[in-house]
């Protein structure tokens, strides 16, 4: 038997699906609804909504420190915030932890970086202590070991 359901009762967007079901299973479902109230629509919807819930309950909890590093990597928290949350002595340790976990640095989309760089190049040139042409006359910075 082919059934068609349209669930229009709630405010959420609805989709219509068709699927095949044994006559016996359908009779069983109808009997269940008759005993407990509701409708076949609600019964099927609630079954679909509950899928995966048990997986969530049994999902391994992410280590809170790893969570902070993941948030740092995705840009949800700043380097300094992450350092505070992890209670590390300074942000150098946080960068180290990020690298050790194999997590990437937060990354801006390439077009955003290109746009920012283009918009700021002239202003950045105005910050140069000794403005110089490209790849010429560079001053040797103090080496930091």
């Amino acid at each position, binding site marked *: 038997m082919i059934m068609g359901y349209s669930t229009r009762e709630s405010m959420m967007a609805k989709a219509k699906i068709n699927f095949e079901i044994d006559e016996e299973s359908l009779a069983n479902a109808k009997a269940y609804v008759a005993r407990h109230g509701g409708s076949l629509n609600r019964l099927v919807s609630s079954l679909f909504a509950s899928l995966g819930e048990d997986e969530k309950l049994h999902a391994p909890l992410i280590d809170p420190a790893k969570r902070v590093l993941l948030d740092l990597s995705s840009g949800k928290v700043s380097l300094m915030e992450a350092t505070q949350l992890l209670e590390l002595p300074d942000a150098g340790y946080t960068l180290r932890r*990020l690298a050790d976990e194999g997590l990437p640095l937060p990354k801006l989309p390439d077009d955003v970086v290109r746009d920012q760089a283009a918009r700021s190049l002239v202003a950045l040139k105005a910050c140069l*202590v000794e403005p110089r042409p490209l790849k010429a006359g560079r001053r040797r910075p*103090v080496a930091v070991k």
Partner: protein
Amino acid sequence: MTTLLIPDSGPLFSLAAADLLGVLLHFRVAITDVVKEESIDKGKESAASIEARRLLEFYSANKAGVELFATQVGHDLRSLRKKDPGYRMPRNVGELSIQSLLIRLQVQGIDAPPIVLFEDAWFLRNAEVLAKPCLVLSTQAFLVNAEALGLIESAAEARRAIAALRPTAYAKTFRR
């Protein structure tokens, strides 16, 4: 008058991670008292990271090339600490101190809006809402422009070096 480049703490640590602090010497750099406390001063602690030590060494060797600005935020933090030695700094206080400096510079009527250098994550969380007048710049875009200005060989290489914390891997490409 040369425009100010004001880095937040995050970019300072990133540049230190790739041993790229020397790039800053090409610019007129200003840091706030709070940013100094969050980054450079951490190098004084016995458990300081390599990056924090590198920042302290860099600052000690180049004090004349880095302008230090006291801010109202820094003043307030010191007052709060006097009253309560266990006082914990609020989050992103370095950014607040930069805002404090920007307000001060605006009141003083600076000629050109400074450039504020933030870590890339800042741009993922904020829509460049910092008080104008200033130009905000991500570390990624700063590196792209440093390459364009011939100060570093490759922005992409620099970023890889920051991510890997392997300054020696970048030594060959850093233009000294």
